[in-house]
């Protein structure tokens, strides 16, 4: 009987001692964590896409809490709503950020850009780009092997079998930039979504001289500079035989679109222009899928 008693008392004593040590240790080595980090993390979409530039939502929440000024930080997935909630929790001023969307700056479909050779290596743009200049005469354009589609976590891209080019589903795209990083040819760009989702961009990245580019692809930008001349807002620059429209300067007047001799400038989600017949419009201008 006494053995049982001794055992119980010893164990209880040991337990109590351990409890005291643990309590003291937890007081001594306590790490203070700002409770707002958890609150902010809960407000974030938990997509962990990395679109904000931080490794996951938790790291972004920590950065938000730590920063004095959060106007440069933005969650592209949550957009203005989420950032407003976060700013509310933290009592800080939120930044102004226009929603962005990914655009594919290549229109070299099978029709416009004839295939000169056949690639049958591993189905990966990165592998193909490390190996050679691609199946067509344009070594800048889309390889069509779908690394961007593979990288997209939001079901916002698919490969169009007919054109051989990726298509961005605008409503799903959160502008996390995963496809931009995945593309070895730097074809995909994040651009301002624009008012009513309307935007204008040069759908080409070919830096060859005009004649060479045109020979490889019917719809290549030949760097002629007509668009830059006609632009009233100095939004268009020509560099390395390639026009680029600065979306901060562009006022969507659309004067550049009809002057382009190769139809390399695309307008998205605009109503058909009144004075011109509808055939001037790009075929990819359906409201839900546009690239």
């Amino acid at each position, binding site marked *: 009987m006494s053995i049982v008693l001794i055992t119980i008392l010893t164990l209880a004593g040991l337990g109590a001692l351990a409890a005291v040590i643990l309590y003291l240790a937890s007081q001594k080595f306590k790490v203070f964590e700002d409770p707002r980090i958890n609150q902010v993390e809960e407000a974030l979409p938990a997509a962990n896409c990395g679109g904000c530039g931080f490794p996951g939502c938790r790291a972004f929440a920590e950065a938000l809490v730590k920063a004095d000024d959060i106007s440069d930080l933005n969650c592209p997935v949550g957009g203005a709503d989420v950032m407003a909630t976060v700013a509310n929790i933290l009592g800080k001023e939120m930044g102004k950020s226009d929603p962005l969307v990914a655009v594919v700056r290549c229109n070299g479909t099978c029709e416009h850009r004839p295939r000169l050779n056949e690639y049958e290596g591993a189905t990966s743009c990165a592998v193909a780009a*490390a190996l050679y200049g691609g199946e067509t005469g344009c*070594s800048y354009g889309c390889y069509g092997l779908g690394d961007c589609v593979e990288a997209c976590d939001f079901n916002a891209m698919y490969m169009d079998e007919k054109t051989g080019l990726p298509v961005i589903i605008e409503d799903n795209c959160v502008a996390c930039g995963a496809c931009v990083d995945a593309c070895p040819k730097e074809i995909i760009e994040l651009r301002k979504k624009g008012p009513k989702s309307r935007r204008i961009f040069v759908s080409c990245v070919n830096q060859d001289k005009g004649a060479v580019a045109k020979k490889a692809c019917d719809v290549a930008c030949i760097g002629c500079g007509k668009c830059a001349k006609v632009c009233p807002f100095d939004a268009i620059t020509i560099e390395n035989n390639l026009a680029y429209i600065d979306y901060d300067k562009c006022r969507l007047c659309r004067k550049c679109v009809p002057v382009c001799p190769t139809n390399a400038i695309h307008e998205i989600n605009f109503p058909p222009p009144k004075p011109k017949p509808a055939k001037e419009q790009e075929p990819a201008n359906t409201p839900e899928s546009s690239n």
Partner: protein
Amino acid sequence: MLKTFSLGGIHPADRKISAGKSIEVLPLPKRVVVPLAQHIGAPAKTELKKGDQIKTGQVIAKSGGFVSANIHSPVSGKVFKLDEVVDASGYRKPVIIIDVEGDEWDESIDRSETLKTEISLSSEEIIKKVGEMGIVGMGGATFPAHVKLSPPPGKKCDVLIINGVECEPFLTSDHRVMLEKGDELIVGVKILMKALKVDRAVIGIENNKPDAIQHLTTLTENEQGIEIQPLKVQYPQGGEKQLIDAVIGRQVPSGKLPIEVGAVVHNVGTTLAVYEAVQKNKPLIERVVTVTGPGVSKPSNFLARIGTPVSQLIEAAGGLPDNTGKVIGGGPMMGKALSNLEVPITKGSSGILVLPHEEAHRKPVENCIRCGKCVSVCPMGLEPYLLMIEAEKELLDRAESDNIMDCIECGSCSFTCPANRPLLDYIRLGKGNVGKIIRNRN
């Protein structure tokens, strides 16, 4: 028991159908396209202008650094244009286009056929000459030869190895050089020995070329210090590290150059070019190119000027067969498919291989069954299946610690894989990405 390298290796059918064909001089093309980057290292720089009149053998582009090489005009004529054209890789690269007019050689070049055995230049003069004459490794790697002849301070070379292995199936250009230019080759070996200040040279030849082994053995009977080493047929024995292992049994440590174990390796083609440069003052403006393939009506070994379009070589070999599926620059194992036939022959073009449709395509890729065949054939002792996954998933730190940079891209893993996995494709991608990180670190 014949010597060979100790790790891995495969045995593709050798199919040397052009082995019996003597070297033919290819007629001059009407126009040559000479790329400015024909070697590893900095591209050469040119000061020519459109319309300049040039002679065969004249320097047309100067070496762009220590690891670089001069480029000489392969023909005489007028500069048509300095331009950028699509090369074998599909990217546009700077070239000099020359319209051929006659064939007037620079006066300093000795064009006689007489064998000149006496080596009058000193070691330093030989290395300088080899540099000036634009000689690069002609086995395919195109590493500037003078760099290999100048060991870094503190390193000493004690044996010169001449690579007469030609382990790629189909190719026979080195084989023909050994048979037809044996005398010149031996003088070339002596020149290289003098440049490196070594008294031992070994010529490694696989024993599927018994005539070459026989011929060179006879020629070197009375030579001091030059040995002929027959080797067991095994791919990729022509790899530098594999050849050193096979011939003298020394292993080059990971990430190090052959000089670490006191060896320098030169290809037989390079050795012949060194002979011509040092004894005849002739720069590297032409080379032996094998044009071959199962459907080619006249498989041949041509002596072609650098810059000749591939299409002309194929024409001379009887034209492109009807069922052509792929034209490869180099051999079937390490060569690269050409994206167009107007690309020129460069200093590193050892062969043109025309494959019919049925042999030109890859088989459907299946899942890895973890059979380990790729591991057992890898001559560098790597684990290709693992490196492929690491490269694909961008686990670059792990790929680096698994020695991805040691891969010599021989393709044995892809060749042997029963599931047809594109192992080398991904490993090459991983090598590029890891290489970028390593360069940025320094």
